């Protein structure tokens, strides 16, 4: 673990790697987590949540409201297996956020599900602090992890145990083709959490990893100026 100080994260230089792996959010923990989309029309949130879901045969309940579907599109089933998600998705497509919250609460009370994911666009009135608090309590009571994806909303109140903000970064260099986008990279910012320190990481998902816990990696962003500057040309390598 990395010791935290008031100034930020301290990286011990004695370790071999310059940036150290930070434990990923344990997807199996049955708490409510908020993931806020860093920008509009960003697929990073979906990828982030999918890679955090636990490996299980039990279905995942995926609830979305009409606006979220219209803004960000529907979850596309044929891509899931490629992405490395093996489970089944039970889709609930409703029009009003009120029904999303109701269905999520019902799902959170059902121990037969491996996880519940809800998508709500904007900041509707029904998605109040009380509503999220209810969801959080339900999730902890029935031991089902609950994820709430919020797009088009920046920092409304929420009682979620962990709050993330995820956005896309320029992708890795493609292994064979420098002109093509490679494996996705996301910027994951934990801006509010209970029981752990907030921070900002670079997140990657590796669908080919053998062990499920290796599939998802978070790397501390280096605060080092030259190093950070080095990354930018690497990302734009394709243009030259």
């Amino acid at each position, binding site marked *: 673990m990395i010791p935290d100080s008031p100034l930020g994260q301290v990286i011990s230089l004695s370790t071999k790697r310059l940036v150290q792996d930070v434990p990923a959010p344990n997807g199996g923990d049955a708490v409510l987590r908020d993931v806020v989309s860093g*920008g*509009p*029309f*960003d*697929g*990073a949130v*979906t*990828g*982030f949540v*999918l890679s955090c879901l636990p490996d299980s045969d*039990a*279905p995942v*309940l995926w609830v979305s409201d009409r606006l979220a579907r219209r803004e*960000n*599109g*529907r*979850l*596309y*089933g*044929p*891509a*899931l*297996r*490629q*992405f490395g998600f093996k489970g*089944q*998705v*039970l*889709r*609930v*497509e*409703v029009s009003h956020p009120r*029904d999303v919250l*109701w*269905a999520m609460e*019902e*799902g959170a009370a*059902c*121990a*037969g*599900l491996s996880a519940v994911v809800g998508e709500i666009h904007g900041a509707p009135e029904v998605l109040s602090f009380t509503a999220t608090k209810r969801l959080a309590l339900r999730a902890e009571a029935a031991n089902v992890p609950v994820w709430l994806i919020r797009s088009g909303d920046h920092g409304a109140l929420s009682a979620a145990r962990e709050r993330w903000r995820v*956005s*896309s*970064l*320029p*992708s890795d260099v*493609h292994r064979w*083709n420098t*002109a*093509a*986008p490679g494996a*996705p*990279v*996301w910027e994951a910012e934990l801006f509010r959490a209970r029981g752990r320190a907030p921070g900002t990481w670079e997140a990657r*998902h590796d669908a080919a990893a053998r062990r499920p816990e290796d599939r998802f990696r978070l790397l501390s962003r280096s605060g080092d100026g030259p190093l950070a500057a080095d990354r930018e040309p690497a*990302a*734009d390598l*394709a*243009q030259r």
Partner: protein
Amino acid sequence: MDRWRRIVSQQRTLPSDDVPVVLATQGTHGPVVYAMNVEAVQRGVLEGARVVDVQAIHPDLHVEQADIEGDRKLLDRVAMWARRWCPWTVRDGVDGILLDITGAAHLFGGEARMLRDIGARFKMQGLSTRLAVAPTRGAAQMLARFGGGGVICGPDDVEVALAPLPVAALRIGEDTVRLLQRLGLKTLGRLMEVPRVALMRRFERMAAELNPLVLLDRALGRLGDPLNAPEDAVKWMARVRLPEPVIDPVPHLEGLAADLCRQMAKAELGARRLRLTIYRVDGEWRSRDVALASSSRDVAHLVRLMEGKLDGIDPGFGFDLLTLEAMGVEPLALHQDQLDGARDASADVAALLDRLTAKLGPEKITWSAWCESHLPERVERRVAALAGDVVAAPLILRERPLRLLNPAEEIAVLYAVPEGPPARFRWRRVAYLTARHEGPERIAPEWWRDRPGTRLRDYYKVEVRGGRRFWLYRQGILGDGRGGDPEWFLQGIFA
């Protein structure tokens, strides 16, 4: 034919009476006539004739597809409905119903008045009938089919009544009919006159259902021929009668559900569909249906499902009778699959499906189903979770976006390059600068499904400056002769 008239008259105009109409079914050499209307009968159309032959003779022939399975189902239901006259009824062949009216005719004022009643009531339903009463089942069916309408035959004159009927009335095979006719035995009367020993020797090896002698003996009452009527369907229903009208059904639900579950538990059954009906004091009734993912007789679960559906029920001035009925039941034995008493996870999911479906509607809760297609928006279909089952996704080798916009949205190209995707484009009023791209992946239109003239698509995975990754496609190529300049669309968002 009557059923067809009834169905068609609800949906469109019937052909006029002077047009011959036939219902066709599939024969060995193409469609053959299965049933026909009065005009066709008068013109001499025969059952079993090939439709093309009939069409050649009568160019104005109107042909429709026969629904034999539907006819049979209707007849089964009508046979059950006919138990209003007597307790034992059964479907007979594809076009008849047998009623055992022993001891029931006097309730309707004698056999003649009963026949009139039956005929009138069938006419009300739009069905035509030919009726006959006879002491035996065989004689009744022969008289009804071959003896003209409304024959009432007493126990003493069976032989007299049957004598003029053709031998085909016995419903023996065609070969036997031809054989008897060749022997000169064209009517049942002639058949009865022939010495039995000779006939017995001839038809010795025949099965009892096809043996003319046995059938004749049954019709004349010399052999027993009991009626094997199916059982009445059991109704799983619980009801509460209230001493005075109330407005709120909720307090009575639990008692009703407990009563229903107790009945079903005795028979080891579980409900799949439930109907709650309230009977209002003003004579109206209202009902609510609930479907379940797996059969259940859990009182708390049923009550919870029903409670969600009661918001829209209109109690009027109150109601005094409340029934809860299990419309569909399935065997459900008690089972325990874990010794530690933990709950079964799949049962939990089934209960969740029930609750979601009951509140939100069946079409909103779906599993994915797959369709073999190259076009990305056609690969995935939604099936209702209660009706469908989980199917594993097909493996697609090319990379696909995690989110799909359906329909795809058109983008404005700000700066086009001859090869590859646009260098700058505008989507939803924001301009994007392409940083890197991969492609094209060409997906051709599916000629067996698409309209002619549909253009092909070239898909590109595009990463814009800043990091978001989109799936664009160009519809058509310049100079493919299927429209003007190709258009660009955005169909998906990658992770």
